[in-house]
């Protein structure tokens, strides 16, 4: 895989876009979901680069655990960013 590999670039671009969106949306649950998507994209990219352990962990942690924690916090603190 060369530097300019389309899948790699595409994934990276998608990561930047989802990250920006996660920070921009109004609703907290949407933001958490977008952050989950961001984490999965990242994990996919890691896998693409051969970092399977990191990809696995990122999927477990970023995609699942962090998102769950954000969502459960959202239930405790209210959904909207006030």
């Amino acid at each position, binding site marked *: 895989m060369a*530097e300019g590999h389309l899948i790699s670039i595409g994934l990276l671009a998608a990561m*930047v876009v989802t*990250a920006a969106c996660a920070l921009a949306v109004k609703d907290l649950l949407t933001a958490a979901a977008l952050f989950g998507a961001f*984490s999965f994209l*990242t994990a996919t990219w890691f896998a693409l680069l051969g970092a399977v*352990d*990191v990809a696995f962990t*990122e999927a477990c*942690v970023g995609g699942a655990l962090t998102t769950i924690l954000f969502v459960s*916090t959202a239930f405790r603190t209210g959904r909207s960013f006030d």
Partner: protein
Amino acid sequence: MTTYAFAAALFTIGLAGMALLPNLLRKLLAMNVMQVAVIVFFVSLAFKDGATVPILGQGGAPVAAEFMNPLPHTLMLTAIVVSVSTTGLALGLLVRVRSRFETLNERRLLDRLR
């Protein structure tokens, strides 16, 4: 280089979000983005053209050029753990802040702290 630049972009977005967004939860999300950016950077350092996953197959003696560099991967496992731990603790703090001051908006919080 392009890959590195994406890491730099994510890092900048994250840091800017931490500094500029008014809501504490959102700051926290931005913080996570920033941490992921560092991980992306390290993992891209580990990449070698023509190499494979750093797990030994059945073949003979391994040659360095054939496998991805495992060291940054290891470091980033640790970094991910650090990131989730920080996030967990921060969320705990936010739950407490919210219950005490009934807002997570930085500006309102500062008004209430006065």
